[in-house]
């Protein structure tokens, strides 16, 4: 039989035709590849979270091949000499084995932990970007709520992962969680016994947290992340205000090739950073803590940062048990159940609260610059201040020790800062926003500061300003050639250039570090300078 001749060059086209005959995907595929992504660094923050999540899945899968979540007591007999002969749970022993007796296990564990921290940090920073630019407004309220869900799930997922090695620190954290569950009115003791399978610690909690950590919560995270992305594609990106940017378009790069190259490269860089962190920077050295024992604790026991703010709130909350009719609401209930519940509820409802408060029912695809919505920016910074005071208070014992401050003074400072800080932050932020607006208006009215001083015949010194007119495409006025404008440019809540451009400075600087890599552009006369400045922007979209 004669084999058909295979021409390798034709294979991709044939393969594509084969698939398209069955899927009719050419149109949708092209539409996907032509999706336009706006170009601003702050849009990378959510990507960091996504890439960290992928790294978490990869490294986490490796770890599951070696981790054994059983709480059965065993005697350690691995490579780490100081713990040999010590009784510990199988979970802790296998975590030690991953660190010492599995080839490459330690770096996987450390990359996994660093990636978890980066995942949570990126979510928080991404959330701040979305908040401060008003990206959560209609029509994107749903995606904001999904994002809050991802934040909460990430927190629980991180805590579960922190708990399952069953070292002294993670056991201490679990004991506090058991106290928190106990504190819930009416059902506390029953809920704690249901979750732990009896009195703390029992021998079920690590296997239960393990299945939550590797199956249930990751499954939910994958589902929510998919929904988050699907809504993003469906509703298209928001974009920051700027020249040519309207409510009806998206300006940027097509997904292929521009965005794909950038995003792929960026993924590699995020992964590379995590690999370097995991290789060089020790994190959670569980072998130093020893196995969890109910009577063991050490000073300076801090949870990971995304739980740290709750540790801080627990430290600051005063000793206020409520007891009546023979029942108790323990003090710890308020800072660990009510507070995070309120924080996440308010956060999730924020788009609706804001819309109701300012009676804004419009559709928004253009973002706002934080300075142009001073009250929201100020509220955001106040909330951030509140959380930061809590987070710092979560480490107040370490600060007290390192800086030789009284621990009690740190606690009181935290309590006072928690109440006084946010209003102060609100006031200061509001002023800064107004100041930045003012700065933009001033630049629009007088042009860009050049730093060049001119002495007039009668002795007066003035600074030369580079005119800006035409810079936003609406104002048709022309400068008088001395850096003063006959008409002010209108304030449009879009970025205003603050740096003198090449035309204003005379000769352009020449690209190239050691030697020029391009022929210098011929020097232009000052008459052309004005012309260029005015016209250049209009040639841009």
């Amino acid at each position: 039989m004669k084999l058909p001749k295979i021409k390798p060059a034709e294979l991709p086209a044939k393969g594509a035709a084969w698939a398209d005959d069955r899927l009719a995907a050419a149109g949708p595929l092209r539409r996907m590849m032509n999706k336009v992504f706006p170009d601003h660094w702050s849009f990378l923050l959510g990507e960091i979270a996504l890439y960290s999540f992928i790294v978490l899945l990869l490294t986490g899968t490796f770890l599951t091949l070696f981790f054994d979540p059983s709480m059965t007591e065993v005697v350690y007999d691995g490579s780490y000499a100081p713990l040999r002969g010590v009784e510990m749970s199988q979970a802790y022993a296998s975590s030690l084995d991953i660190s010492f007796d599995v080839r490459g296990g330690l770096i996987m564990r450390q990359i996994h932990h660093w990636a978890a921290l980066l995942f949570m940090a990126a979510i928080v920073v991404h959330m701040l970007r979305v908040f401060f630019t008003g990206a959560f407004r209609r029509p994107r309220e749903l995606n904001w709520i999904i994002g809050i869900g991802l934040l909460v799930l990430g927190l629980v997922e991180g805590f579960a992962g922190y708990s399952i090695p069953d070292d002294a620190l993670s056991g201490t954290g679990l004991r506090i969680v058991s106290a928190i569950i106990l504190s819930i009115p009416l059902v506390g003791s029953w809920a704690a016994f249901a979750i732990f399978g009896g009195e703390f610690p029992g021998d079920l909690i690590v296997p239960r947290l393990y299945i939550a950590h590797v199956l249930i919560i990751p499954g939910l995270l994958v589902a929510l992340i998919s929904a988050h992305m699907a809504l993003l594609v469906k509703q298209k990106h928001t974009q920051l205000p700027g020249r040519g940017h309207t409510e009806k378009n998206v300006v940027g790069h097509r997904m292929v090739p521009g965005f794909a190259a950038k995003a792929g490269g960026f993924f590699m860089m995020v992964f590379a950073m995590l690999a370097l962190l995991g290789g060089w920077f020790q994190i959670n050295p569980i072998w130093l803590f020893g196995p969890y024992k109910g009577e063991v604790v050490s000073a300076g026991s801090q949870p990971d940062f995304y739980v740290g703010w709750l540790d801080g709130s627990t430290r600051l909350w005063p000793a206020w048990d409520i007891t009546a009719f023979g029942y108790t609401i323990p003090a710890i209930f308020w800072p660990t159940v009510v507070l995070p519940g309120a924080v996440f509820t308010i956060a999730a409802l924020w788009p609706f609260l804001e819309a109701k408060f300012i009676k804004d029912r419009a559709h928004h695809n253009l973002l706002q610059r934080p300075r142009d919505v001073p009250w929201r920016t100020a509220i955001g910074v106040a909330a951030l201040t509140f959380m930061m005071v809590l987070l710092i208070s979560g480490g107040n014992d370490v600060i007290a020790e390192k800086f030789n401050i009284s621990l009690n003074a740190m606690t009181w400072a935290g309590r006072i800062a928690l109440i006084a800080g946010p209003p102060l932050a609100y006031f200061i932020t509001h002023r800064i926003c107004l100041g930045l607006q003012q700065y933009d208006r001033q630049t629009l009215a007088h042009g860009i500061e050049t730093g060049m001083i001119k002495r007039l015949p009668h002795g007066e010194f003035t600074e030369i300003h580079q005119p800006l007119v035409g810079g936003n495409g609406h104002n048709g006025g022309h400068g008088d050639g001395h850096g003063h404008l006959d008409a002010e440019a209108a304030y449009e809540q879009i970025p205003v250039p603050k740096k003198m451009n090449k035309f204003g400075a005379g000769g352009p600087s020449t690209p190239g570090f050691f030697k020029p890599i391009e022929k210098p552009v011929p020097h232009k006369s000052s008459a052309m300078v004005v012309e260029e400045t005015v016209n250049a922007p209009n040639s841009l979209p």
Partner: protein
Amino acid sequence: MSQGSASNRGSGDPDSTGINLDDPAVTEFDLVAEGARRDGVEIVRYRPRFDTDSPKSAAEKRIERTIALCFVLTGVAAFAFVGIFGFWEWKYQFGAGADKWFTPLLGTAMGVALLGIGFGLILWHKKLMPEEVAIQDRHDGASSDEDRVLTGATITHLAAETGIKRRPLLKGAVAFGLAPVGLMAVAPLGALIKDPGNELYTTGFTGGVRLVRLDGSPVRPDDLAAGGIETVFPGIPGGTTNEHADSPTLLIHLREADAVKVRISPKYADFHYENYYAYSKICTHAGCPASLYEQQTQRLLCPCHQSQFDVLRGCKPIFGPATRALPQLPISVDSQGFFIATSDYKEPIGPAFWERPS
């Protein structure tokens, strides 16, 4: 996209006002732009970084070489990773050794390999790929009114199609039948429920149980110098394990000078043995061991949330979030001279809960 399907679209699509796809003068980029146009994307600016018709300039060659170097570096580092992973001394040995470099070297190799791809791709985009600005139209907002009407009718018509309104018997039967299915789905979770019983009120101590150290050895008064403390456990099987994580107790031997300053409620007057006092080690706030003993001020500090307890005042909380004193264990000495508990704690140890008697 094959030429055939493209030409079909070009002639068949009434919406098409663009180019003729079969025209031999049409370039590949024209096709790209036309595809983008049909997807509502206008490529408004498209400028190659370098003139591809003229010979490569020095700058272009330099960038090409840099990007090539990035990928070569990736290859080298990735090989290095595999080599280190396979052949470097990795097995942990206590003390200094080449194995301590295993993890950092792996991280470096992996990091460099991935950075090479990252820098290569981003340089490629920024320096070689055409500079581009594309504008995509959005058509957002609600569906068209017609779509709403048609879809709404399709949904509301379900009532007529199933005839649920005409047949109230079915309505009731379905409701009656399906509601318990929800219960059935939830019911197995009931397996989790466990009656707390009196477990939160008891520890491993009972009358006559010895106070033992972690290694199980009993404690005599002489074993503890004045001013010293010792963590003790109930001398029962498993008493020193996490099975009795509620039982760890702090045995404190006060110095005579401090002991005379002790002010304690008469309720607990006979709980101590001479200058030996035993308090639950489990913090009444969140259950951490409140074990940092400051001899000068006679305070116990819980390192988790900094609650402080005054040893000379029955371990009452004097700072921090804890609200209740550490429970005191009544102790005595048995006929052989070892410490024993005369009973269990008189109140629940550890964190509070709803039904805890206040």
